[in-house]
């Protein structure tokens, strides 16, 4: 029985949260990797673009709530996401036309594009703060828990409860659907294949008659979808605050690089690698060992490898280690 308790403990505090957090990171990381692979620059505006999309989702959610539209037990935000995506994609295409296109056509070095993306970052940040303000916003409604800790205890008669938030389940399901569609699109359809070809070798792709304008546009559309959904899911699960979104850029970058930048599947797994290592290394295992070990060997300390303050530092340290030993990432992305 103790053993089952220990497993439930780990599920509750490590596995489920890490899976949800990892999914959110994975969506962002695929966004970064797509932009890097096809448009060929490191997009420092990632976090703020995600907050921009989320902002529209929130505005539509508030609007729907005010006119009384709801989605039953599910959060209203799910209904608002498609509308958010429309605005987000429009914004990205405008930004591309006004800003990035010029440098792409002039074949500027990637560094210059990265600098330009910092300008976009400042502007996006300002727009978000001017429209919705810098404060913390929650926009979740509907049923909060799928399984409550207390109910679970009653049901199974165990000491440890397992609480699963509905946002966690939604996050994981939506991510799986979105990512499998994306991989199907990239691997099976003609447009997807031409995108991969363009990312692999631009000149050769152009020679074989691939239209670069179309590729770039589709990339921004997909990027907009990923950014909005990723941002909205994160906001639903935690809360929306422009500053946190800006900071989330850092673990997202770490995930993309750890997975091998330019490689969408690597970025997907990279998100989970970062999330699990962050949580595994900062969790206090004391209770776990209390269940598993006999009473005489019970530990006195917290058995915590690193204090939770170092959550972010963990993912960055992983990144540094990967950089040292395998600069192209775990799943062989572009060699940088």
């Amino acid at each position, binding site marked *: 029985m103790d053993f089952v308790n220990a497993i439930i403990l780990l599920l509750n505090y490590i596995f489920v949260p890490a899976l949800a957090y990892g999914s959110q990171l994975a969506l962002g990381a695929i966004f970064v990797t797509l932009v890097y692979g096809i448009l060929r*620059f*490191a997009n*420092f505006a990632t976090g703020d673009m995600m907050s921009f999309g989320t902002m529209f989702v929130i505005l539509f959610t508030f609007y729907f709530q005010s006119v009384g539209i709801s989605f039953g037990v599910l959060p209203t935000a799910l209904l608002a996401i498609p509308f958010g995506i429309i605005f987000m994609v429009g914004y990205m295409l405008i930004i591309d036309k006004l*800003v990035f296109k*010029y440098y792409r056509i002039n074949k500027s*070095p*990637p*560094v*210059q594009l*990265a*600098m*330009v993306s*910092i*300008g*976009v*970052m*400042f*502007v*996006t*940040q*300002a*727009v978000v*703060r*001017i429209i919705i*303000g*810098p404060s913390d916003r929650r926009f979740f409604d509907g049923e909060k828990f799928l399984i409550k800790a207390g109910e679970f205890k009653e049901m199974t008669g165990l000491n440890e409860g397992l609480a699963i938030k509905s946002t966690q389940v939604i996050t994981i399901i939506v991510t799986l659907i979105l990512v499998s569609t994306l991989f199907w699109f990239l691997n099976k359809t003609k447009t997807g294949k031409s995108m991969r070809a363009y990312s692999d070798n631009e000149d050769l792709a152009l020679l074989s008659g691939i239209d670069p304008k179309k590729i770039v546009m589709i990339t921004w559309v997909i990027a907009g979808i990923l950014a909005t959904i990723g941002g909205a899911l994160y906001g639903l699960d935690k809360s929306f605050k422009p500053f946190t979104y*800006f900071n989330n850029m*850092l673990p997202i*970058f*770490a995930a993309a*690089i750890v997975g091998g*930048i330019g490689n969408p599947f690597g970025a997907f797994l990279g998100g989970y690698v970062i999330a699990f290592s962050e949580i595994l290394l900062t969790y206090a295992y004391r209770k776990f060992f209390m269940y598993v070990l006999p009473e005489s060997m019970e530990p006195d300390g917290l058995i915590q490898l690193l*204090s939770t*303050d*170092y959550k*972010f*530092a963990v993912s*960055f*340290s992983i*990144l*540094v280690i990967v*950089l*040292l030993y395998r*600069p192209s990432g775990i799943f062989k992305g572009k060699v*940088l």
Partner: protein
Amino acid sequence: MRKNLNVIAAYSIMMGLITLVGIFQSWNIALSIFNLCLISAVMTMGANIQWGYAGLINFGIMGFTALGGLAAVLISVDPVQEAWSAGGFNILLSLFLIIAMVLAVRYILKNYKKSKNRTYIVAAIIILGIVIIRFISEPGIEAIEGVNPAKTGFLGGLGLPIIFSWVVGAFFAGGLAFVIGKVALGLRADYLAIATLLISEIVIAIIKHEDWLTRGVKNVIGLKRPAPYEVNLQQTDWFISLVEKFNSSKLNLITDLTERQATLNQLVIEGSSVFVKLCYSGLFLVVVVILLILTQKALYSPWGRMMRAIRDNEEAANAMGKNVVKQHLLIFVLGSAIVGIAGAMLVTQDGLFTPGSYRPLRYTFLIWVMVIIGGSGNNFGAILGGFVVWFLWIEAAPIGLYLVNLTTAGLDDTHFLKVHLIESVPYFRFLMMGVGLLVIMRYRPKGILPEKIEIK
């Protein structure tokens, strides 16, 4: 003279703007803008050495600034004797163990061929070392943090004058840059940018959470000053007579003696804070001028030419026998050290060290905006960038308010749009920076004062 006309013009306009702030707002504000402009100028010089001279992207400026600030704390704060006796021994022992661990790893890496066993042994040493160090340091850290936690709770510093920390800060930042450079400089440009950005976050995380060293988010306040205190100045005779002399025409108009005394007191209070700020300005100006002379000399020396050659064509420079890796490392360390000086100066001016305030937007990206807008590769340009951007950063709110009032003049004062816009005036500075950066990058990619190569 002729060819430097644009430089002189740009700087006079800048000085004119700051003077206008002095006349219309107050000299206090003008001087604090000027001081921070000078500090920003030091930071941009550091970033400019790396980016403008050698083409290295360093997005870790925040980390080096914070290390400079840490140096200011460790140098100037008086040592906390109780804490040292409570846990000093454990900390020193851990420090010794860390050094031993690093040396052992180095020894193994140098003397054994690459093999699986070697990797395992290195990993084992590191893991074992961390476990032992944690066991030794933990009671020490707890003891130190337990010593009067509301006031100290940390080891304190050396109790030296804070000016020394400017040099020490440079060494701290340079040391960290050496380690980072060894690890990350082989990477391609945008990869290096991300890596340095993340490493600087790690540095901040450590500074924020190692309370025994830095007091963490509890902040260190009341640092020593290189300048006199306002309160002391207000009671010094020579200062009062100085203020009297300066304002004699104004004071002579007042005939009533008590009223005259009250006005004088007011003037002395105002004057004292201006005087203190002027002291800082003088100190900072000395640093900026020294650094400017050194960097200018370096830029036009054979070494500077070599750096430009490496920047413009790495392979060719390599083929000519220049050691690209070594030079990159050198310039990375030098540039970061300058940023470290700026970090120490910043903490000196503020008189407090707040680890929570180090954010990448303010200390990394804003500095980059300064370098790009001012003109990378040109020291005068970089300094000008520091001035212009910092000035706009501070004055963006008043300008934004003016613009909002102008555009919404037709609306009622209680109209929700107007109220909302006036509330969000502080965020116009982000908009201004972003648009400024984008416009400069597009239409004047070399910055306001572009790089000029003169062959002497």
